[in-house]
């Protein structure tokens, strides 16, 4: 046969790569839109616990964060501290903080505020309990203990 090979060998037409940058830019923008940026610096070291029963909050603008762990900067000591909005604070400052943070939400959503606690696994419960008590006093009752998800064991 060989019918198809009879013609002269033509060089392959170069594929235009002009649209490649556009595609990559679209990818870039997609990632920029979908990733949630960390809005504040973590000034404390936090290794989150691993749990199987995780809940994911859909409405991210309702979340306010409390970080608890040892300071990144050793000059502030090695004991666990509480971080509220980019600064270290005492547990007694939490009630005031909750009031202020509530006001940053729309009026209809003020009761729906979530407090996400990012606590280092090595922290002792004493600090965490104090924070929880303050939150209760401030009527910020919806709490999320931030954690990474893992599989259920031994079921």
């Amino acid at each position, binding site marked *: 046969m060989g019918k198809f090979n009879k013609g002269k060998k033509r060089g392959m037409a170069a594929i235009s*790569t*002009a649209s*490649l*940058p556009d595609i*990559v*830019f679209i*990818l*870039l923008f997609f*990632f*920029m839109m979908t*990733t*949630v*940026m*960390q*809005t504040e610096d973590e000034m404390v070291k936090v290794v*989150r*616990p691993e*749990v*199987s*029963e*995780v*809940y*994911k*909050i*859909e409405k*991210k603008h309702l*979340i306010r964060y409390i970080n608890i762990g040892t300071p990144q900067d050793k000059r502030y000591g090695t004991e666990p501290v509480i971080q509220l909005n980019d600064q270290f604070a005492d547990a007694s400052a939490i009630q005031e903080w909750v009031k202020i943070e509530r006001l940053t939400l729309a009026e209809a959503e003020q009761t729906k505020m979530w407090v*996400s606690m990012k*606590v*280092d*696994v*090595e*922290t*002792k*419960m*004493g600090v*965490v*309990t104090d924070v*929880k*008590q303050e*939150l*209760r*006093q401030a*009527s*910020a*009752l*919806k*709490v*999320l*203990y*931030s*954690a*990474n*998800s893992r599989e*259920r*064991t*031994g*079921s």
Partner: protein
Amino acid sequence: MARRELQEINAGSMADIAFLLLVFWLVTTTIDSDEGVKRQLPPPVPDDLEQQEVKEGDVYNVRTNFRDSLLVEKKVLRISELKAGAKDFLIATGDGLLNPVRDNVELADGNMMYPERVWVRKSELLILEQSYLVAGQTKRAEKVRDKIRAIELFGGDYRELPGSALISLQTDRNTSYDLYMQVQNELEAAINELRDELAMAKFNMTYADLEERYGRSKEQSLLDRILAVRLVYPQRISEAEPRDASATYY
């Protein structure tokens, strides 16, 4: 002078530049995931609150101490055994529809091992609902209505846990946060597994699926099913008021 032809700029390297940007972005952003264990804290306790009498057998006591060991119902347990223990407690004397009725066990100290599940019967509920409606207590009638609906969905009567049955968690101030989270997680896993089993058997869907679908569609029929499952296995985890027990050895 002869005009030179306008030369086209080579755009081949544009892709490389864009890729560099993309990679830079991927490397530098830390993705902040908002996942974790959800908890509703109890409202602050008024000072004049009366202590309620609780039957010893109705409470599943979980304690953790400063050495990160676990004391469950006066026995030392490993964290891996906690889930099975909690499930056994919640099944209690049985027939939350999947488990056969079993006898309660009397412990050496005279207390019962499990809370006593009691029958909820449709015929009795209907009469109860009527009496509440006549008395004008609509809220109570609504609660009874929920139970009737659950029985209709399950296609049969079930036995419910007494209102006093709960899991009580007491943590020492020197317990590590990691252990605390693991305990919380295992207790929640126990409840979720029981709910999943029940929902799977009755509605052919896990409880987690039910909740997820309801979250998307807000369908009333799904909510009814969720509530029905919750009636059989309520989530009652109570955290005792904190106390510094580091001086006490368990």
